[in-house]
């Protein structure tokens, strides 16, 4: 290799490396800030941070995030209960009836949901569920999150169903199994890893969303779950709300809550990565 080409090659490698570093630096800074500040809060409060109630704004302690954490878990669960079957059946329609006008229309529609700002989904659910009932509720939050996670779950379920080998499809139908039996007893069995991954992706999305909850759940930080038709808390909304306050102890609690949220997300992501490996 000539000297000129050697230096060009080196320069290219260094440029790529620097840009890659620049790309991951913000992520590294955010994560380290959350781990350091959030860790400080959690260590100072102890386990009470996970199940305790918030302290008063002028207290010296950050208090706990118990109601918000339980609220988040309930909302994640409910959004998957609502969103997964919808996404699954929609993906079945798109994969099993690819030539149908309805299948193609729904495919485009659901995928376009990925691009819609999630705050608009919050506004939609606000006008459909919160205004008519007259109060914020867990239901409204769960429906908003279900709409948000639907296209993500749909995309992964669709990929999982499309990855089923043609031979397996042929085998199922040649045994005289109906389309419904083939889907629910054979194809889901063959694609279970992908279907589970879809659920984890949905949970991860639901765990971190704030915008759809702004107009739907009411942000109840002080009492544990009181029913589906009552206001409820959620960790992302608590972080948002606490950050806007002028109180130092609430800022500390927001750092701690951020670390909790990060741990939830990373746990789901770790399982997702494990399942994604062939």
């Amino acid at each position, binding site marked *: 290799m000539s000297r000129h080409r050697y230096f060009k090659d080196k320069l290219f490698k260094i440029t790529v490396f620097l840009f890659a570093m620049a790309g991951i630096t913000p992520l590294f800074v955010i994560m380290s800030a959350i781990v350091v500040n959030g860790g400080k809060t959690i260590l100072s409060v102890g386990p009470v941070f996970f199940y305790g109630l918030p302290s008063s704004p002028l207290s010296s302690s950050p208090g706990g995030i118990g109601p918000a954490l339980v609220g988040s878990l309930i909302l994640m669960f409910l959004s998957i209960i609502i969103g997964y079957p919808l996404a699954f059946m929609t993906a079945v329609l798109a994969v099993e009836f690819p030539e149908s006008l309805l299948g193609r229309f729904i495919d485009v529609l659901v995928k376009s949901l990925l691009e819609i700002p999630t705050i608009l989904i919050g506004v939609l659910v606000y006008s459909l569920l919160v205004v008519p009932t007259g109060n914020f509720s867990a239901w409204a939050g769960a429906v908003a999150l279900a709409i948000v996670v639907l296209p993500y779950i749909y995309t992964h379920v669709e990929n999982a169903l499309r990855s089923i080998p043609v*031979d397996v499809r*042929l*085998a199922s*139908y*040649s*045994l*005289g*199994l109906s389309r419904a039996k083939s889907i629910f007893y*054979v194809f889901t069995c063959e694609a*279970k890893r992908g279907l589970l991954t879809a659920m984890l992706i949905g949970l991860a999305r639901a765990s971190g969303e704030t915008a759809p909850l702004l107009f739907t759940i009411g942000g109840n930080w002080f009492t544990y779950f009181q029913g589906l038709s009552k206001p409820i808390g959620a960790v992302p909304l608590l972080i948002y709300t606490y950050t806007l306050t002028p109180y130092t102890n609430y800022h500390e609690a927001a750092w701690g809550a951020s670390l909790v949220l990060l741990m939830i997300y990373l746990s789901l992501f770790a399982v997702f990565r494990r399942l994604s490996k062939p």
Partner: protein
Amino acid sequence: MNPAVNIADLNLWIKNRQILHNISLRVPAYKITVVIGPSGSGKSTLLRTINRLIELTESVRYTGVIRVLGRDIMDWDVYELRRTAVYVAQTPNPFPHMTIYENVAIGPILHDMVKDKADLDRIVRWALEEAMLWDEVKDRLDEKPGVLSGGQQQRLCIARALALKPQILLLDEPTANIDPENTHRIEEVLKRLKDEMTIVLVTHNHDQAKRLAEHLVVIRDGRIESSGMSGD
């Protein structure tokens, strides 16, 4: 004896290209009918048309009448038709995420053919014995079919088909991708089964056709070139 399958004036097109031309054929019951012809002659298409599996292919249309066990295939419930005339593909295609036992059991379970677990165990064992596979897998029924050789997997697919107690077995070059020893075993299985069901076997292997055919059909370019009982 009435034919198990009676095809009259069958013409079939896939994406406006005609694959089968004026096929008329009577498949005698409880005999081995061998359909032989070069690759691309329409043998597999003909086989899949008998139980309407061809309808899973995009843009297919056909004219003519096919009667299975005396009934027009369009009058059958399509799933019942496919259970009665079961198709076994050229490439072994066991369900990879199910165990060997589950592969055989799934058909009887989903068609509500069994009363209880003991009944299911009996059917699974019977089907594996009929496919001459029982002795090789009886101690590893809980394992996935990936541990089996290609020939064993194909016999597992035959066992899976037999578990449905079909009246017609449609085999699409079942020995095309497997070794001579397993080919011999599958041929033995078919010879044993012909007293219990009608067998239609597609092959391009002349020696195999000679060994098995009681009724031989030669197909070329989507047309039947000759058809007759073996020895005619």
